[in-house]
């Protein structure tokens, strides 16, 4: 990670995948599910990109597009500088050596009628790779590398526990010494203690073999542990992407803030202190996503502009991109550079509260709401001089 000027191993630009919704005998198209709707990211060699989001946000579709199990509707996927977006099956085949998947469910991703030897040895046969001492030796080495014993060669998947099956999946993915491993929820089906074993295994393998990972998970704690860079997805869009530490210390998109405040923390003493932002409602359907900012239906700070104008993904901290009109935890410098003015007065009003807090803490639910005054009531806003009283007047008129 010491060299900064590196060519990205994987570069995704404007990636789109729409699934048609068909109806009737003639399979007439009546709509589209916008599973992935224009996402960009890059992954450097040796780096781990974690993708988080709720179910239905397009995480798994993204993974399937990267390994080309699905045909992208639009956009571009580059692997080592080469455009692989629309390569044919045949042209893709030699590349599959370099990009290997690990699947979520260790029960359905292993053929129950094949022995472990056949499963882990399959990549060698399919890619016609010659091994020095034969396939069996190579497979047994892989099994050992993944914490299984070489005697497991002739056993069947049903003889193994969930964690061991996932290790078999990892061994299969490693067989051809890939450059990149794409893992879709690699640990979510496993018990906590086994989860830790598999996470440690993935860590060790990365150090040993210099692998690049793209890991998808819904568990934010797991993603924080494994990733260097984290992308947060919501309804087919990347709403925030940045370095792990920057993103977890100061999440800027309200959705990320809400997600993080929802993580259960194994410390009962925190239960009393913590104020949680509980998002109301459910994720809208990707077949009919809300216009402009897709999060505005559930966002507690949504304004008129959020319903009219889609916020672009902008770099508000070095390497930390956010797509929001009214980001949280904005650093003081970015406030000046990016010009709070162009984002409307709402942003400045918020920073008034944000500046006082050091690091990230879940804000109080009432905090940063528009001050309310009922009929025949008065409301007072006390601020530091010259900061946002003017802005408040604007907001009162705006809303």
């Amino acid at each position, binding site marked *: 990670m010491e060299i900064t000027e590196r060519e990205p191993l994987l570069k995704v630009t404007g990636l789109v995948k729409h699934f048609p919704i068909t109806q009737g005998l003639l399979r007439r198209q009546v709509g589209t599910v916008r599973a992935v709707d224009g996402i960009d990211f890059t992954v450097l060699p040796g780096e781990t990109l974690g993708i988080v989001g*709720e*179910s239905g946000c397009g995480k798994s579709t993204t993974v399937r597009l990267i390994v080309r199990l699905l045909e992208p509707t639009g956009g571009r996927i580059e692997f080592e500088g080469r455009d692989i977006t629309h390569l044919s099956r045949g042209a893709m085949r030699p590349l599959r050596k370099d990009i290997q998947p690990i699947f979520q469910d260790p029960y359905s991703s292993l053929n129950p009628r094949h022995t472990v030897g056949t499963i882990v040895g399959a990549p060698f046969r399919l890619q016609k790779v010659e091994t020095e001492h034969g396939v069996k030796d190579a497979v047994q080495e892989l099994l050992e590398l993944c914490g299984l014993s070489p005697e497991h060669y002739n056993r069947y998947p049903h003889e193994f*526990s969930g*964690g*061991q099956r996932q290790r078999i999946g990892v061994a299969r993915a490693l067989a051809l010494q890939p450059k990149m491993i794409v893992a879709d929820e690699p640990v979510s089906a496993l*018990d*906590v*203690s*086994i*989860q*830790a*074993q598999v*996470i*440690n295994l993935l*860590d060790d393998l990365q150090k040993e073999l210099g692998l690049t990972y793209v890991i998808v998970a*819904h*568990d*934010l*704690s*797991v993603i*924080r*542990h494994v990733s260097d860079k984290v992308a947060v997805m919501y309804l087919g869009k990347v709403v925030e992407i940045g370095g*792990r*530490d920057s993103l*977890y210390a100061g999440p800027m998109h309200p959705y990320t803030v*809400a*997600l*993080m*405040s*929802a*993580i*259960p*923390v*194994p*410390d*009962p*003493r*925190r*239960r009393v202190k913590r104020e*949680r932002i*509980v*998002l109301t*409602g*459910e994720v809208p359907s990707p077949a009919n996503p809300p216009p402009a900012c897709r999060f505005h239906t559930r966002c507690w700070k949504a304004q008129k502009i959020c319903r009219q104008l889609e916020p672009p993904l902008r770099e508000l901290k070095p390497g930390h991109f956010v797509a929001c009109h009214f980001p949280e935890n904005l650093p003081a410098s970015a406030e000046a550079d990016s010009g709070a003015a162009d984002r409307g007065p709402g942003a400045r009003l918020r920073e008034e509260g944000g500046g006082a807090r050091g690091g990230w803490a879940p804000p109080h639910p009432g905090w940063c709401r528009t001050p309310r005054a009922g009929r025949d009531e008065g409301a007072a806003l006390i601020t530091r001089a010259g900061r946002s009283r003017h802005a408040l007047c604007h907001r009162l008129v705006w809303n």
Partner: protein
Amino acid sequence: MRRKSHKRQPPVASVNSTETRSRPEPASFLDVRELRIHFDTDDGLLRAVDGVSFELEQGRTLGIVGESGSGKTVTSLGIMGLHRSRRARISGEIWLDGEELLSAAPERIRQLRGQKMAMVFQDPMSALHPFYTVGAQITEAYQAHHPKTDRRTARDRAVEMLNRVGIPRADQRVDDYPHQFSGGMRQRALIAMALINDPSLLIADEPTTALDVTVQAQILDLIRDLQQEFGSAVILITHDLGVVAELAHDILVMYAGKCVEKGPATKLFTAPEHPYTWGLLGSMPRVDRAPQERLLSIPGNPPSLIRLPQGCAFHPRCPFADRNGEKSFTEVPELTGASDPGHQVACHLPPEERRRIFAHDVAPRL
């Protein structure tokens, strides 16, 4: 059948003369004593639950934690009387509000189930019947215990309950089928169904495992609010220590069908004494601490419940098993009092040694 051996009075100070054993009428609302649930299988006797005891008061939440196969769900199904008596061998005592359940007639259990004790299952898709509307299933639960009510009242009650658990437009959604509900809403509907008869004991078996974090937070808040409102006793079964920390007052850690540690939630998270609990805590990546280099995982796999290891069932995975001679390999540790009142641990390590290991080797790595 289940009733045969339990017509007896509680044994007279035979095995261990602890307080709970000697008094027939329990003081607690729910009192489970030496519960054993064994199954006959072709491979031998499977000891799913092997001598678990705990007490629970109304208005309190007990969290039962452990890996899959540790006997959490079997325990809860045992309390609900949902094991088939022909397959399961159940012994021990379960006292619910002064009534012994294992020796009660099946008819009586059926009356209590749904009325006094209710359960929320893990997978909301398979727990709801796809063929009937959500409303029909909830009203059925109500009418089963209120046979004299007419359909109208029952339906109104269902709508009221759906409203209470936070389903928008409940008066319309009540006629929807389960597939028209999202995962979180199905779980809410299940909670509504469980609570429609105001049960005083609610068992929630992994209520949030299938849900997203934001929905999980909603459901946990809902369970907490409802508990405060109805004052019911809640048993929360989960493998996620984070979820337990959000809700539970007391925690019981199960391993291989036995309780290895139990105590108040604050103690269990700040000063756990069993190596298995250390492992569980260490296995979780945490967002409230600086990122660790490596997780403190538990090596190996949970044992088979048919062929349990000799001695302490955890010894093959315990890094400290050899610290006290042969004891861990030959003797099953008893659940004994730890440093604080109400905190019990089943471990052969001497208490001072346990505290020292936790403070020096484990706590810094959590």
